[in-house]
């Protein structure tokens, strides 16, 4: 029998009871659509979160004080952590691929302008911050490259704090007080919005040394370094590790590369996408059971027909292929419908709710189609084997 003959006979069987085939296919269609829609949302979310995280750039290495490891008991003097200092941050610049580096301090303080005051986040940063976080001032300039130990008391405002304290007035040159200390505003940052609940615009940026003083801290919270494009994150981390170990006498810090963080995050988000896909998969399973049910009924109804085909010289394999083909055709058509519904639904969702990140991964869509055909094959297998295994004499007697 040629493929065309199989298709023709299968098509006749499918269309003979078209409503039944339609409803059976609909089960698969809904399952496929659910998988595609849910994975589209998952993938959209995935991309959205990764974009949020990588908007600071991806070539960043962060060093935090203290080493992440667990000991069985207190290790006394060996457990002492030396604080990270501004000199540590500066020392990293001597590593060839490091383009910029700065110490970071975060605190909370009262910021007072002429008429208003607001309690907000104060970040102590280096003059390289715009480069490291790819985040530029909109008005004026960023903190000047002073000697980091004795930086002048300049401040740069986030766009929101600018608005809160000065409305629309240009605040350049204005004096403000942060926790009682006087600073001069030299710039206003562009608006960056919220990142995972942290409002980047409700921040005042001041030099690291000033922040250390202000918050009465001994050491930095973090050192952020930018390395050149194309350099290996692992090599950079090693070089930083060697430099700081030499300075501290032991490895009492933790290095995190953005790349590592993104890949960890990426794998978490992939699991999420997979999990929502699996939820859709449940409805696909229900669809498969529908096919199994209908094919079982079909084999029972057409038992005499199987006997006839056997009498006409059909091999068991041909009977198997005919029934399997029927299941696969119903499942594949259902899958294709589901693909259109799912992808179309995704597009509609994107039009209706533009804020919702929807991205249909086409390899998922293709996989859904393949999977639905495969489900037809699996669900059809049991009834088809039963049909192929029928005794022709007994089958012919069935009416």
């Amino acid at each position, binding site marked *: *029998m*040629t493929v*065309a*003959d199989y298709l023709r*006979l299968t098509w*006749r*069987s499918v*269309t*003979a009871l078209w409503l039944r085939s339609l409803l059976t296919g609909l089960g698969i269609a809904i399952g496929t659509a659910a998988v595609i829609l849910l994975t589209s949302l998952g993938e959209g979310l995935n991309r959205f979160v990764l974009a949020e995280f990588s908007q600071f750039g991806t070539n960043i290495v962060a060093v935090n004080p203290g080493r992440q490891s667990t000991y069985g008991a207190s290790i006394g003097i060996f457990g002492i952590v030396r604080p990270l200092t501004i000199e540590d941050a500066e020392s990293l610049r001597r590593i060839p691929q490091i383009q910029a580096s700065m110490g970071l301090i975060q605190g909370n303080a009262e910021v007072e302008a002429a008429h208003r005051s607001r309690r907000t986040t104060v970040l102590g940063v280096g003059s390289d911050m715009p480069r490291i976080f790819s985040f530029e001032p909109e008005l004026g300039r960023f903190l000047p490259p002073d000697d980091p130990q004795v930086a002048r008391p300049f401040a740069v405002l986030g766009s929101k704090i600018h608005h809160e304290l000065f409305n629309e007035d240009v605040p350049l040159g204005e004096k403000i007080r942060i926790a009682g200390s006087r600073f001069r505003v030299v710039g206003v940052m562009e608006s960056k919005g919220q990142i995972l609940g942290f409002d980047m615009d409700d921040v005042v940026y001041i030099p690291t040394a000033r922040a250390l003083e202000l918050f009465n801290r001994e050491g930095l919270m973090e050192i952020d370094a930018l390395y050149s494009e194309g350099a290996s994150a692992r090599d950079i981390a090693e070089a930083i590790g060697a430099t700081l170990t030499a300075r501290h006498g032991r490895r009492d810090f933790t290095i995190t590369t953005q790349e590592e963080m993104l890949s960890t995050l990426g794998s978490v988000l992939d699991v999420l996408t997979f999990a929502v896909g699996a939820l859709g998969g449940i409805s696909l399973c229900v669809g498969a059971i529908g096919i199994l049910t209908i094919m079982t009924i079909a084999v029972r109804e057409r038992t*005499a*027909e199987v*006997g*006839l*085909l*056997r*009498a*006409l*010289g*059909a*091999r*068991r394999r*041909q009977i198997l292929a005919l029934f399997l083909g029927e299941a696969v055709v119903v499942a594949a058509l259902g899958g294709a419908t589901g693909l259109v519904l799912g992808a179309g639904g995704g597009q509609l969702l994107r039009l209706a709710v533009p804020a919702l990140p929807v991205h249909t991964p086409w390899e998922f869509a293709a996989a859904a189609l393949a999977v639905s055909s495969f489900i037809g094959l699996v669900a059809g297998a049991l009834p088809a084997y039963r049909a192929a295994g029928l005794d*022709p*004499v007994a089958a*012919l007697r069935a*009416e």
Partner: protein
Amino acid sequence: MIELAGVHRDFVVGGERVYALNGLDLVIDEGEYISIMGPSGSGKSTLLHILGLLDRPTQGLYRMDGVNMTDLNDEQRARVRGEKIGFVFQFFHLIPRLSAAENIELPLMLAGIAPGERGRRVEAVLAATGLTDRARHLPSQLSAGQRQRTAIARATVTEPTVLLADEPTGNLDRVTGAEVIKLLEGLNIQGITLILVTHDPEIGRRATRRIRLVDGRIAEDDREVGA
């Protein structure tokens, strides 16, 4: 060309062994016209199924054209069925969603014959059975007689050497039944071996060789002298 020797066929029904055929010997020559009669349960259908390779003897020998059929596996038997044997059933067994022509084409399709050749052969048997203008009709649009003629066309389109008919007139009225028998006899005259199982003594008498089965054995085997 067909030889059955010591053929037994028994079934286990509800824990009891039932002997459908009980040491049956039969030789059938090419081109014979045989009717098989006998009370129900005498093994008529079982014999027909064994002859048609749908069933196999529990014991005994079946040879067709010198080949031992009892040695063949399932696949080989399917091939022989497709090539050498045609079946006509009491209940027609047409596939309801296929047209008359498509039903007739089915065995050619299963045998893997090229579409062009299939078309020619289907047209020829349609003409021979007087169904040319019914080719596109579905079985539900055909009369009982036309349905059985379609079934006969389907059985003969592969040009088998043996035609097995199981109560071919059982579902037909007397007039259409007679037409169908005439059609079958015409095929026999053209050379096909016709083996007919029937309850109807009038039809049974028309055959040139009349076999009567009782309890799975041949009780009578009358040959028309000079046939």
